[in-house]
């Protein structure tokens, strides 16, 4: 292909003026990718057009600027410069479904005790009694199991009560529109009165070891870090984050391990506005 004649065809200028058809645009982009000279010429021409526009223009009036920003005011999520946050407590994982371990141990201990009892009786009484003792043993294991299920139930019931009693607002944070992970999805559950925040991860990619996901509550005073997100937990496990009283939106960014004082907006993964 004759790159020079392509460059001098005038196509690149029309590309920048937005006057090419979709198919022609694709062609220019494709060539620009393949031939650095074409990309360079596009960049130069864009600089020229920007410089030309700058040199031939006068600034729009202050009133227009004020009007634009008052119109956009309600859309802004990050309204002010981020305030450095001092407190940074580690995120507590609230176990919703992993409470079985202590009860399994209790059940095992019950089984051992039962075995001891069985041997004692076996010495004193007839061997036939062993059968009965074995049943007894089974029964204590089952009692242990039942106890475990009951405990689990009570715990979930208590958490459910808390949710029913609390006024939890669900804020869906999505990755659409950002570059990091388009299909990312994390929900925030926020009781504004009690200032309690939970998050539940629906879809969030793994991170390499030198990074952490950090949750931000974005209020009138700018973004405040409210804890690191543990993405190694089972899907939809609730994690309690730091208390938040006021926020217009929540967001998660990728930060260096341990979190940052202010969010790196270039690595914003998900964002959800409080409706």
């Amino acid at each position, binding site marked *: 292909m004759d790159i020079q004649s392509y460059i001098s065809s005038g196509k690149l200028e029309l590309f920048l003026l*937005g006057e090419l058809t979709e198919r022609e645009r694709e062609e220019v982009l494709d060539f620009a990718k393949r031939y650095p000279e074409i990309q360079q010429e596009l960049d130069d021409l864009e600089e020229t057009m920007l410089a030309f526009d700058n040199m*031939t223009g*006068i600034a729009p009036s202050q009133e227009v600027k004020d009007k634009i920003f008052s119109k956009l005011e309600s859309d802004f999520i990050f309204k002010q410069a981020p305030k450095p946050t001092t407190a940074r407590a580690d995120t507590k994982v609230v176990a919703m479904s992993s409470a079985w371990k202590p009860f399994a141990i209790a059940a095992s201990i019950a089984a051992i005790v039962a075995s001891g009892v069985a041997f004692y009786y076996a010495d004193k009484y007839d061997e036939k009694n062993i059968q009965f003792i074995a049943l007894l043993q089974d029964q204590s294991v089952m009692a242990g199991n039942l106890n475990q299920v009951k405990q689990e139930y009570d715990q979930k019931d208590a958490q459910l009560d808390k949710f029913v009693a609390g006024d939890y607002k669900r804020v869906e944070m999505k990755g659409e529109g950002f570059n990091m992970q388009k299909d990312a999805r994390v929900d925030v559950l926020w009781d504004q009165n009690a200032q309690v925040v939970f998050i539940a991860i629906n879809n969030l990619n793994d991170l390499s070891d030198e990074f952490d996901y950090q949750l931000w509550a974005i209020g009138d005073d700018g973004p405040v870090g409210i804890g690191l997100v543990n993405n190694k937990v089972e899907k939809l496990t609730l994690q309690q984050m730091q208390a938040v009283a006021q926020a217009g939106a929540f967001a998660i960014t990728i930060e260096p391990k341990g979190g940052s004082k202010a969010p790196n907006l270039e690595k914003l993964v998900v964002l959800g506005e409080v409706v």
Partner: protein
Amino acid sequence: MEEVQIIAGLRAKDRKTTEYLYDKYSKALYAVISRIIFDKDIAEEVFHDSFVKITKKIAHYEESKGRLYTWMANICRNSAIDKLRSKEISQSGKTNTIDDFVYGMESQSGTQEHIDGIGVKELMIELNEDQKFIVEYIYFKGYTHSEVSEEFQIPLGTVKSRVRAAIQVLKKNVARI
């Protein structure tokens, strides 16, 4: 601020980034519009709507399809052309020429505008008649190249190469001034 940072900040709806964008590009973007629309109030209205549109459409902007300024300038240019062709303006019968534009800027108060007006003249001075014609119709009257070709019966290829030649002259002058 790098372009990627600006885009990321706009997508996060960050006020500071939006202000930075405004400060950096409002003059150039407003120029794109006010060249085509001579009436200051209407031009500012179109600029207002275009800028708001830019902040709202940034989520759909694809970096791989062209750079930020070009994308924004196209939004402004298209809005200005749409407005120009709406009934609201065509009834007033006003058409722009480079001379009107320069005169309009020079007659405004303030020295800054005055200097800018001289800039336009200096930028245009080396264009030959054909090139000046192209710049006038494409930049100041909001014509597309195919419209210029149709209306003035100039072959499309010729229009393209004149656009190219005119911008090359501007490029040289921009670098010189």
